[in-house]
């Protein structure tokens, strides 16, 4: 059934691409200038790459799900090692209690939960301390230290943990009760160093958060599921990720010199030829920014953090000794830099064509092509995740409004990172929804 849906989507997109190609050719022929001819070829090529990427991810995602269903029938149910869950918290008094409660109710019992207060100025430590003790065979420890940033807090707690496996979750994450049990199964394979879980938006209170809900299932979870087919998930998300402790220690833990410590750690593991998997049914709900400026702040930090992580490993961009690692680095560069810049470039070119030759039908075809991709991707994800179907309608707004604005923030973040303009962590205020 899924293969059939995939074939239908791929055929529809293919036909539409060829159809819009006729319009592209007309515009191409209308220009005498070599620069504009080249620009049109570039945009057509970029469009092809983006669509190819989407179709590949849907295909890999379907294959990975089939592969997973087959392989877990063989899993040994007696594999129940100790897992330490680490919750770094800085000024999280609004959300910390809910987060701890969601961890205590986990179906997996061999658990140690460490609440790592990073020198909060509010009541985080005091609230968390009330939960210290033993609950249903799970131990809760509350540690505190002077404020030093998320990565230092995580390393501090990892060093003091007793579990064979480390699960890192954000303080505002609310986990499904079987998340730990589902993720720990993967570590039976000694080559697996880390497993990412699915992140869903918990506060769908307005259009912006609903657009992010769509982005999380289509742009993040589906992509990770596709990457997991190759065991090369490139970012273990902050809200839910599990690691083999020996692997974290071997690569020196979380680094302090980047704003995307999760991306950096994942890259270090891939560099060591370790495998990174994804469990789509291990779910964490997180609070997404519900105001535009907060969203820009988050995306600005993500982009600069990812670029910092890539920069640290940039010597591997042209060294193909570890092909997987080089491939992941280029893929991340494509997502962080090439895509936003090409998206803006294509928009500017279409505006120029419209002003110089009159409004061209290429505009609607170009937008429709991406919207078909988005709606199909969204529908596929909604069907496999039992998400609200109405979310697929937001796919129409997604390309025109959401991606456009986010890409502008990414472009400015790239420019500022290029010029090494100082930046601060910029914590988002949580509302506890």
């Amino acid at each position, binding site marked *: 059934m899924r293969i059939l849906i995939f074939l239908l989507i791929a055929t529809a997109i293919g036909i539409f691409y060829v159809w819009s190609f006729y319009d592209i050719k007309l515009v191409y022929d209308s220009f005498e200038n070599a620069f504009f001819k080249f620009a049109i070829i570039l945009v057509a090529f970029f469009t092809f790459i983006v669509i190819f990427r989407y179709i590949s991810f849907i295909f890999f995602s379907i294959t990975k799900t089939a592969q997973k269903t087959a392989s877990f029938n063989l899993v040994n149910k007696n594999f129940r090692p100790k897992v330490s869950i680490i919750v770094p918290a800085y000024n999280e008094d609004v959300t910390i209690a809910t987060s701890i409660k969601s961890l205590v109710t986990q179906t997996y019992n061999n658990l140690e939960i460490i609440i790592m207060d990073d020198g909060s100025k509010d009541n985080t430590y005091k609230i968390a301390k009330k939960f210290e003790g033993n609950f249903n065979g799970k131990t809760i420890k509350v540690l505190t230290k002077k404020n030093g940033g998320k990565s230092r807090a995580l390393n501090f707690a990892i060093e003091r943990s007793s579990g064979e496996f480390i699960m890192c979750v954000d303080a505002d994450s609310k986990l499904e009760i079987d998340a730990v049990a589902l993720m720990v199964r993967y570590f039976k394979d000694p080559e697996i160093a880390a497993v990412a879980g699915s992140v869903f938006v918990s506060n769908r209170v307005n259009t912006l958060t609903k657009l992010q809900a769509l982005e999380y299932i289509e742009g993040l979870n589906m992509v990770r599921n596709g990457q997991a087919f190759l065991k090369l998930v490139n970012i273990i998300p902050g809200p839910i990720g599990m690691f083999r402790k020996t692997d974290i220690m071997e690569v020196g833990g979380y680094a302090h010199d980047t704003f995307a410590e999760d991306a950096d750690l994942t890259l270090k593991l891939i560099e060591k030829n370790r495998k990174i998997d994804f469990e789509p049914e291990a779910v964490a709900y997180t609070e997404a920014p519900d105001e*535009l*400026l907060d969203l*820009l*702040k988050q995306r*600005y930090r993500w982009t600069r953090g990812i670029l910092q992580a890539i920069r640290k490993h940039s010597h591997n961009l042209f060294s193909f000794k570890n092909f997987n690692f080089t491939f992941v680095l280029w893929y991340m560069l494509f997502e962080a830099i090439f895509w936003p810049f090409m998206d*803006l470039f294509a*928009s500017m070119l*279409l*505006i120029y064509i*419209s002003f110089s030759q009159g*409004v*061209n*039908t*290429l*505009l*609607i075809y170009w*937008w429709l092509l991406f919207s078909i991709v988005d709606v199909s991707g969204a529908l596929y994800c909604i069907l496999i995740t039992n998400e609200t179907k109405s979310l697929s309608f937001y796919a129409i707004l997604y390309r*025109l*409004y959401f991606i*456009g*604005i986010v*890409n*502008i*923030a990414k472009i*400015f973040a790239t420019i500022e990172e290029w010029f090494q303009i100082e930046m*601060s962590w*910029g914590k988002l205020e949580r509302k506890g929804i």
Partner: protein
Amino acid sequence: MNFIAFLSFSVLVIIILTLVFGIVAYFLYKMRERQRRKGSDIITYEELKEEDGRKYLFFDEVHLR
């Protein structure tokens, strides 16, 4: 004007508005962060004491003016 041309025109308008809005929103965000950072420069007596690590803080006369 036929329907496809009308839709193309609408997409053009939305693209232009989104680009302008995106740029304005980005600069609004930067302005807000700058103002917040200025606000966070204020430090309480207790925080300063903790940072300094001593029991009392001594001020020069020039700081009290």
